[in-house]
């Protein structure tokens, strides 16, 4: 589904990703772990198409299409969803309106019919239930005055609504207490299916207790230096990153 080959990315003239390779198959959950500054967030932004991330070498194919040539919204229509580490506030923009505009934009981009107001209301209530987002938050401005947990739940709600083929979670666990973490993780788990893949970027193993990955990769200095199964995450939890970094350097 997603194939990243020898990806090099500069941010403000500095090389952050240095030849990253990653293959994600249909229905797989991959976790990327790594120390601060290893390039985890850069990877998620490059995949989503944010400005300011210059690809100097390599390629990214998503279902056979050259992802790097697509605009951010085209990537969204194609099925890429990025749950952000710091969801942006949109003061004055009603959350419900935003969700409907986004859903209809994506549906349109996918050549599907737009949903009318009634069908949308029904759908959004169902989805909000899954992530336990209080209905009152649907009526407020997007993320404005939301707590950290509410913002992340709103992200997962959007993911549930837009039904991507690849969901990227960028440090979704940061700033969440254990209860919020569980709700978010349950939301993600409910979206797992054989057609949908996930890339879970995280600092800590904790999130992976709830969202069990098929593969775990360690990202350091802009490259994946070790891959394994879920046991690798546990090993990292126990021993830290130091030993892998040393081995990689050796």
């Amino acid at each position, binding site marked *: 589904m997603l194939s990243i080959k020898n990806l090099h990315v500069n941010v403000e003239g500095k090389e952050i990703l240095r030849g990253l390779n990653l293959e994600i198959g249909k229905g797989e959950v991959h976790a990327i772990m790594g120390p601060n500054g290893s390039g985890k967030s850069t990877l998620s932004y490059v995949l989503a198409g944010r400005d300011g991330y210059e690809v100097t070498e390599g390629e990214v194919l998503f279902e056979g299409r050259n992802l790097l040539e697509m605009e951010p919204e085209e990537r969204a229509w194609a099925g890429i969803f990025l749950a952000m580490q710091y969801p942006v506030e949109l003061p004055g923009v009603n959350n419900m309106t*935003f969700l409907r505009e986004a859903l209809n934009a994506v549906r349109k981009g996918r050549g599907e019919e737009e949903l009318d107001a009634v069908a949308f209301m029904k759908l959004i209530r169902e989805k909000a239930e899954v992530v336990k987002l209080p209905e009152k938050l649907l009526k407020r401005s997007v993320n404005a005055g939301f707590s950290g947990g509410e913002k992340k739940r709103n992200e997962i709600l959007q993911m549930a609504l837009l039904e991507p083929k690849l969901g990227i979670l960028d440090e979704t666990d940061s700033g969440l207490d254990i209860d919020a973490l569980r709700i978010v993780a349950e939301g993600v788990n409910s979206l797992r299916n054989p057609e949908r893949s996930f890339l879970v970027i995280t600092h800590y193993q904790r999130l992976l207790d709830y969202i069990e990955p098929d593969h775990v990769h360690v990202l350091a200095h802009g490259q994946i230096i070790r891959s394994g199964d879920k046991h690798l995450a546990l090993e990292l939890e126990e021993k830290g990153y130091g030993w892998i970094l040393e081995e990689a350097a050796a």
Partner: protein
Amino acid sequence: MSTQRELDDLVKAGYEAGFVTEVESDTLPPGLNEDTIRFISEKKNEPEWMLEYRLKAYRHWLTLEEPDWAHLKIDPIDYQAISYYSAPKKVGDGPKSLDEVDPELIETYNKLGIPLEEQKALAGVAVDAVFDSVSVATTFREELAKAGVIFCSISEAVHEHPELVKKYLGSVVPHTDNFFACLNAAVFSDGTFVYVPEGVRCPMELSTYFRINEAKTGQFERTLIVADKGAYVSYLEGCTAPMRDENQLHAAVVELIALEDAKIKYSTVQNWYPGDENGVGGIYNFVTKRGDCRGDRSHISWTQVETGSAITWKYPSCILQGDDSVGEFYSVAVTRGRQQADTGTKMYHFGRNTRSTIVSKGISAAHGQNAYRGLVRMGPKAENARNHTQCDSLLIGDKCGAHTFPYIEVRNPTAKVEHEATTSKISEDQLFYCRQRGLKEEDAVSMIVNGFCKEVFNELPMEFAVEARKLLNITLEGAVG
């Protein structure tokens, strides 16, 4: 929120209102002197007192100079190069129904999305369409007459209701008020007159669409709305102008008078041609709008959405004379390209317990310059008067400007004035977030802008709010990136 298809259509359409209707006009050659004024007055078959009023204003105007205090760059205006009268030729004695109206005029309105035929059927909106300088179609007159509401052109009112016109015309904006209002008093061509009698709630929203069509024809509208004791009226003003590669002067005067317990709600969507990207062409919009809360517990509310014109100079104001009277001003002003706007309001608190609210939303894009200028004056007798002002600016891009000039004068120690102001920018973070969720950049911008303007749009009547959003979307098309 408009759908993408709507937006695409609108974008393709460019400045949709930019067409010129071929109608034979009876146009006065350019120039301004006492003969011009006599000609206008004679054309309209006005009584002597009206002519005298105009001449008095003209003679005073000769002593005035153009104001230069606004935050605007204006090329000099040659008042002798303007034609002061233009009227479409009449069919017989004038149209008695829409069927008699020049089909081309009707077509013009249809292109502007103001189908009179449909509006007749659609409940609620009566239209007194001003095409160039003379009213050509008035609907719902009979229904209004049943309620005792007078809704006609100001020319008709001069003939049919001279006592009301004499009593109220110039009583809120005297001809000595300012340069442009004075010019208007001398040469005003036509406009609207509304009188709602005591205790009557006007059964429908009244609406006039203004349109400037003749090249070089200044348009000098005069509007006078009187709500007698306990009356209520909501009035909508909307306008577009065809594309012309030269500046057109527009200097309107609007006077509102609310007596005891009366309420007047006045809404404007203004979309006159703003000029091209380099600032060539476009309307000069110098308007004097003022409402007088003359009676106790009276209420005047201004709502405006200003997206057009090369230059906007406009301060819809309220004189709060009556005790417990209320004044409101809700404004969205958008400038892009080379547009300039200096707009705001004045709230004069004279009566006790008077209250005023000001909500101003300025949006600047491209090279647009947007200034809010507002005065809140608490007079010595304005016991317990209150004002709340909220003044927000939104910047799109880094070549535009937003400026705020609040003036506050308080002469009564019990009065309270609050002023809040913010300036924000549509951030790259916000746009990326929206695009990641599948929205195109321009849709994201229009969604954020609409959110920013929501408080003002909420004050507009439903159909106007829809039109205002649509306008905003077209106006800001391509403003980013």
